[in-house]
Every structure is written in structure tokens, then in C-alpha cells.
């Protein structure tokens, strides 16, 4: 087990994974994963394709509940409370932990309806409040200026990069505490990618971000901590700087230097 260092004195442990095993049927995709993620940091999960980083990420907001045949063992503590405890409600958890997916998946509704979907299902009905939330979220996602005149147009008319920022705005609208991102820029062009990366840098002020990325350069650019996954195990965890300049494990070093993956 590798402990992750504290960045600032007193920075809280926001999300802690303890002895997490994940099975698809009889196949074990994640073996005894332990990871601590601190509040208001950006934590990157890297590794070659198929190593389980997305699988691990999805376990953090109980998305595996939606997959028949998937089984998660172990504990994931959000502010000390186990999200896999028998009475824990996934609806609540997903309110506090939001997820942005690899491919933008806006609903076939207007831009406005997409953004306020989350608050609406949680019971918000006041139209003025919803409009405020919409503007705030779109501003935070750096999309407001581009769409403020066409909030009532279909979200599907936006470009790929805009759609992904819309999905981020959608998540921000429910005011989560943690944002999980599963390779959010991998389907986008470089300009859109850099916009998203800038956005992530701003988000960490108010949120905790965990991001899966297959690009080491991206991890190096935007994250403070990095965990390296290989064949379903967390091989090494540390500050991004340490991982990339002074990796302790040979496998980590091989991956960093491009010997595989």
C-alpha cells in the first residue's frame, strides 16, 4: 500500500478508496486498490489502455450499479462515509459526485434544459432560480458567451468541444463536491482540449477533480497528484512531479518513458 503525500497541511481527505476489488462476472478488473484523494486537488489516473483506470473511476460514484454482472468490493469513503454501505443511496451520492464522460452525451433537448436537468430532478422549480443556475454553470464551464443567445436551441447543434463543456456545465449545475472525468478531451480537437484543460485548472478552486487520461502530457499539465494503473492494480501514487521525474517502480518508469502502452 502506498500512501499519498499531503500537499497542504490540513487538506482534508475527500475521497478514500480502501481495498477496492471490482469484478465483471468472474474476471477481476481491479485488484486491492487503495487511493486517497484530497479536497480541492486535481488527481490524475494514468496507465495503458485496458488497465482498469476507467473501471476504477466509475466505482467512485457507483456507476457499476448500472452494469449487470459487475461487482464492487471494498469501501469508498466520501468525507468518511462509505458510499457502498448497505443504506447508502446512489441518488444522493451521484448528486455529490458528478461525472463527465469520454464522449459528450448531451440530451436531445435545448441547451437550457440540459443544464438545468440536474436541479430540476432534485426538485427545483423556481424558474428564476433555474435561469440563475444555468448562467452560473455555463459561465463556470466557459461556455456562457458562446451560447447565451441560443439557450433555447438544441444542444445537439453544438460542436463536439462545446457539447463537452455543456456536459461539464450540466454537472456543475448540481453543485457537486467531486467531479470525475473519464478522458473528457480524448474525443476532441486540440483547441477544444486546451479549453477544457484551462477549465479544469479553474475548477479545482471549488471542487475536487479526479481525471482519467491516456495522455501523460495532459496529466503533467493539469494534475497535482497522479496514480499509475497497470493490469488492474495501482502500481504507484505520488505527486505528479515525483511520478514523472522520479518514479519509484520500474513499471511506472517503463510506462513514462514509453516502453509500452
Amino acid at each position, binding site marked *: 500500500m502506498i500512501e499519498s503525500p499531503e500537499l497542504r497541511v490540513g487538506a482534508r481527505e475527500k475521497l478514500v478508496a480502501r481495498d477496492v476489488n471490482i469484478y465483471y462476472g468472474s474476471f477481476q478488473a481491479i485488484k486491492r486498490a487503495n487511493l486517497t484523494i484530497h479536497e480541492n486537488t486535481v488527481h490524475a489516473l494514468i496507465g495503458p489502455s485496458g488497465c482498469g483506470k476507467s473501471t476504477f473511476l466509475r466505482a467512485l460514484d457507483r456507476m457499476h450499479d448500472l452494469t449487470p454482472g459487475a461487482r464492487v468490493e471494498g469501501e469508498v469513503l466520501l*468525507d468518511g462515509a462509505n458510499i457502498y454501505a448497505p*443504506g447508502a*443511496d446512489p441518488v*444522493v*451520492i451521484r448528486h*455529490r459526485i458528478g461525472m463527465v464522460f469520454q464522449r459528450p452525451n448531451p440530451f436531445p433537448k435545448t441547451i437550457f434544459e440540459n443544464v438545468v436537468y440536474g436541479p430540476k430532478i432534485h*426538485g427545483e422549480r423556481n424558474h428564476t432560480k433555474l435561469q440563475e443556475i444555468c448562467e452560473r454553470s455555463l459561465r463556470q464551464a466557459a461556455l456562457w458567451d458562446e451560447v447565451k443567445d441560443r439557450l433555447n436551441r438544441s444542444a445537439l447543434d453544438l460542436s463536439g468541444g462545446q457539447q463537452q463543456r455543456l456536459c461539464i456545465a450540466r454537472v456543475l449545475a448540481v453543485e457537486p463536491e467531486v467531479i470525475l472525468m473519464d478522458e473528457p478531451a480524448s474525443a476532441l480537437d486540440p483547441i477544444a482540449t486546451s479549453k477544457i484543460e484551462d477549465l479544469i485548472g479553474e475548477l479545482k478552486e471549488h471542487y475536487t477533480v479526479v481525471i482519467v487520461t491516456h495522455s501523460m502530457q495532459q496529466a503533467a499539465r493539469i494534475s497535482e497528484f497522479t496514480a499509475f494503473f497497470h493490469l488492474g492494480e495501482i502500481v504507484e501514487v505520488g505527486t505528479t512531479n515525483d511520478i514523472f521525474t522520479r518514479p519509484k517502480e520500474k513499471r511506472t518508469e517503463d510506462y513514462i518513458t514509453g516502453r509500452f502502452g
Partner: protein
Amino acid sequence: MAVVATTTVSEPRIVADAGVRRRRFVDGLATVILWGLGASVILMLAAFVIYLFYLGASAISWQFLTGSPEETTAGGGIGPEIYNSFYILILTLIFTVPIALAAGVYLQEYAKPGMFRTIVQFSAESLATVPSIVMGLFGLLVFVYYFHWGFSALGGAVTLTLLNLPALMRVTQEALSSVPDSLREASMGLGATRWQTIYRTVIPSAIGRMTTGIVLIAGRIFGETAALIFTAGLSVSANHPYELNPMRSAETLAIHLWYTHSESIVPDVDRIGNGSALVLLVMVLIFNVSARVAGRALTKRFTGRSS
């Protein structure tokens, strides 16, 4: 919003607030209702089957199944009607299967995108929208009036052919499209012509699904009424109830059931109706089960796989 509650054991828990609890309740209620609706479909079918058996079982006897119908007295049977149902079924299939198969194969394997292909597809779709009674009237116009055949099994069979052509074409096309292109490429690559490829490779692979489709459509033909009332007629010949001549009036079992209900003056209408309905139901069930069994067996035989 969520609340993190702490118990005296200082173990924080994630607890749902009132809003979430209410949504959970609605979700649970909706799930129960949808399960209920799904189950009610199954129960409805069970109820129908049981009730038809309950009503009709007492009517079934060897005499009933083979005897001839009576016009005015009790004790009539449905023998000739069952015979006619099968007769018309077989006759219809003799026409429908080759034409639908050929047209389906042509559309799926040969036709290049263009005017002709579009018109044929459009024609088939249009044919499919014709209500069965309208088709029956068309048959009346052509075979009874124009050709002066009067009521005839042949006229009924051709009318039913037109009615079921689109469905069988669709079955053929879907079965053919389920055969992967790699099979065709392998065959043509060995020097076979297009037709040889289809005949020797594609059709055998697709034959299981096609058979299932054909048998299911046969079940529908067996129960067809509206299109036959004006073409095949409402009566059986009293002297020659079981004959091979296609140019005579041929009342099928399904029509007999309707006729019994609406026109018949025999005193045991209920008994005959119940018995006929039961026989029709049993035939449908048989067709349904056979369709699957035959389809699976044929696929196995011709391709060696189970699907």
C-alpha cells in the same frame, strides 16, 4: 441535499433526505406498476387460453372434428372446414413462397439502388398497408366478377397471396441480411456465380429464420377471414365436402366460426362456436411452437450451429 449523519459510534453515513426519499418512492411505485402491466399481458393470454379451453373442450369429439356441418339441426361438425383451411393454406403457400422468396432474394442480393428497386420496395410497403377486407373486395372484383369464377378456393388463395406477399418478402430480406457478407465473399472468391452463391451458401444459412417466418405467416393465413368471405365463400358443397377441385366454394374454419355466430340458425350455435374457436386457438399455438422448433432444427442442420 444530502446529510452526513454521525452515529454515536462515530461512523459517518450517507443518508437520503425527504426529497430523495420521495423520488425513491415514486421510482419504486412506478416499477411495481410497470411490472404489473407486463405481468397482466401474460395473464391476459393465459386467461384467454384457459377460457377457450373451458368453453370448447366439451364440444370436441371425433364426430365434431370430422363430421359435416348441419344447416338447420344440431350436431354439426367442422370436418370439411378444417380440410378447407388446410387446403387454402397450402394453396396460398404454393403461390406465396416462391414469389416472395424470389422477390426478396432479388431485392436483397441483386438489385442495385435505383428506380426499379425503390418502386418495388414501395409497392411491397403499399401492399402491406391494404386492410384485409379491402383485399377481399379486390379479390371479389377480379376473381368472382371479372373472371366469373364465382366463389373459389383458388380465388381465395390468390387473394391471400397478395395479402401475405409483403410480410414474407420482409422475412426473406431480414433472413438474408443476417447472413454475413464474408460468406458471400468467400464463395464468389472461389469462382462461384452470384446465383450459385445464393443457392448454395446464403439460402442454407438463412433457411432457419425463413422457415420460422413462413410457419408464423402460415398461422396467420389459417386464421384469415375478411379476405376470404368474398372470395372463397361461405359454404361447402353438401355432396363433395372433401374435394381437390380448387374452383369451388370453400368455407374455412375461421369463416365458419363467424358464419355460425352471425347467420346460422342451428340450435347448438354456442357449442359449434366454442369448439371452432378452441380448434383455431390450438392450431395457432401449434403453428407458433412449430415455427420456433423447425427454425432451430433447420438452422442446425444446414449450418451446424444453433443460431
